[in-house]
């Protein structure tokens, strides 16, 4: 009976492609309209309350985008290459230091500063990757842990020697004639940057070297036996990942206009690991989802706290006074819950849902 209904998923290919493109265009349109909504606090003329906008402002979205760069590079390193690193705070700091040196002291233009930061990051990453030639797993984590404190100290010294005690200042960022002066301009710049980095990382995983990386993660001995030079690959992965992190650090520094070494403390580094665990290690889309969660959680908690603060006495006081601790607490519990119950993170959960509801029937 050829006229029988085709099973779901094996539908008309052109219609399916048309649907995909519609979704993509809608998504891009949404992303472009979002900053307008957040700036005007209204959508299509209808005013929205703070609670409805989830207490988000464009500043937070921009910070989220900057964090996404770090999350993407870390999940690339940890998930796809199988190398553990707690050093992303240090690499952001390296980028900020390079930006201070080339931008503020040498007065280079912004795009060149970013390039310099990426190069510095690659160099730092190569240095950081060197211990991985000798030590594995836990010891590599320790090496990056040690590196974190060393870089922190160096940044501190650099700040005191070259600038003043308040912080390291940065010039205004400008892409040629375009001055990044408003949050909306930053938003679009960052959005493009995140999209480019995402595409870069995703495509690099599809190349020969990317597959070699995954082979190295899965079974190093077998990869070596297959002729992959594991040592050089490891260092390259570190260099690549940290150059992106340093780039993000430079962008962060310019965005904040003044930074201190405290910005890049161990808590900052830990947040990246928490984000990629929640998102799913190795999944680039998961890194984005994890960062979004990291952004939304404090806003939602702030909203709840503000609403409950007026209502119940003691609980409301705790919620309002200790908001940052509450955020850390809930995020920490979330990470623990994910580690125990859903080790694959959001990415694995989505994959399972997809398989259950959109499974293609066997042809």
């Amino acid at each position, binding site marked *: 009976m050829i006229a029988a209904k085709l099973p779901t998923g094996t539908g008309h290919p052109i219609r399916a492609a048309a649907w995909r493109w519609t979704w993509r265009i809608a998504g891009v349109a949404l992303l472009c309209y979002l900053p307008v909504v957040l700036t005007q606090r209204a959508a299509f003329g209808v005013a929205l309350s703070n609670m409805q906008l989830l207490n988000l402002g464009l500043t937070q979205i921009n910070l989220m985008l900057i964090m996404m760069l770090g999350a993407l590079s870390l999940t690339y390193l940890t998930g796809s290459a199988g190398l553990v690193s707690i050093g992303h705070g240090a690499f952001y700091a390296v980028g900020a230091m390079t930006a201070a040196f080339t931008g503020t002291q040498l007065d280079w233009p912004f795009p060149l500063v970013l390039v310099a930061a990426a190069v510095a990051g690659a160099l730092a990453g190569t240095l950081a990757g060197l211990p991985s030639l*000798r*030590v594995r797993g836990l010891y590599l984590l320790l*090496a990056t842990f040690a590196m974190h*404190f060393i870089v922190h100290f*160096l940044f501190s010294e650099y700040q005191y020697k070259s600038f003043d005690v308040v912080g390291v200042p940065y010039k205004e960022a400008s892409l040629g004639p375009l001055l990044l002066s408003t949050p909306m301009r930053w938003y679009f710049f960052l959005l493009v940057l995140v999209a480019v980095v995402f595409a870069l990382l995703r495509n690099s995983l599809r190349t020969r070297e990317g597959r070699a990386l995954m082979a190295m993660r899965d079974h190093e001995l077998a990869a070596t036996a297959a002729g992959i030079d594991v040592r050089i690959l490891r260092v390259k992965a570190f260099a690549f990942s940290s150059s992106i992190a340093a780039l993000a650090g430079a962008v962060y520094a310019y965005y904040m206009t003044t930074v201190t070494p405290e910005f890049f403390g161990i808590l900052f580094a*830990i947040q990246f690991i928490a984000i990629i*665990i929640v998102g799913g290690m190795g999944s680039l889309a998961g890194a984005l989802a994890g960062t979004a969660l990291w952004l939304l959680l404090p806003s939602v908690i702030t909203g709840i706290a503000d609403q409950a603060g007026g209502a119940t006495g003691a609980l409301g006081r705790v919620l309002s006074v200790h908001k940052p601790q*509450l955020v850390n607490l809930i995020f920490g519990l979330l990470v623990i819950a994910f*580690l*125990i119950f859903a080790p694959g993170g959001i990415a694995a959960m989505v994959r399972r849902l997809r398989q259950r509801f959109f499974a293609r029937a066997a042809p």
Partner: protein
Amino acid sequence: MLAQVLFSGLALGSIYGLVAMGFALIFKATDVFNFATGMLVVLGAYLTYTAVAALQLPFAVAIVFIVVGAALVGTVIHVLLIQPLSGQPLLSVIMVTIALSSVLGSVLVMTYGTQGLIVETPLPRGNFVLGGVRVSQLHLIAALTSWACMAGFGAFFRFTSTGLLMRATAAGHEAAVVSGVNVNRMNRLAWAIGSVLAAIGGVFLCQLQMASVELERIGLLALPAVVIGGLQSIPGAVVGGLLVGLIEQLSSTYVSPKSADMFIYGLLLLILLVRPWGLFGQRELGRV
């Protein structure tokens, strides 16, 4: 001056050695690199504050309170967080301890406030001069107590049957299970003891400074101490602690106050590159 610095370095180093010993114990028993050690030290500090300032307990009772409290927390941590993650890869368990330190820190700040709390105990705080060196009584007591604890636990492991069972479990899990040892109970005990040791470190550190979350930074110094000494070696952890204490005091006095971190972690990095198994550890032979 140098003698002064050496003395305080050794005194602080004894405290670090104590915390490092607890850390090494947990690592030897359960193979978990406990990043929450720093927070356990802070827990000890806040428990001291609660016992002495808030509850106004007599000092002996306060000590019991702190020890029992820390042991309880350690056991709960093992049961809730470590046991469920039995077969998981290393990074997951390490991340759980990192998340745990974050959770613990938040709870402590929410309970006790963000300001550091001053802890007054009956322990003497004066100084006396011994051979030209100004000796702080508190430092001396801290050092002596640390050594007493280390000796006590060393004896426990050497001479009691429970200690022997713990060592056996740490040496080979499967063999222990086959021999009828309740491995989970041994691990719980290891965690309880490790937490108590960290808490005792916190008891002294909070008197030398203040009871606050900042102590975590100091507690985390046990990590390089253990790695430098040798991850699988408990005496190595003690030596590592002493070394870290000496380096800290020497560099703070002769170079700059903030440089201590760099020297300690620089040494850690060097050891990882040159001799990853530490000064006293055993070279790990893996099957290729």
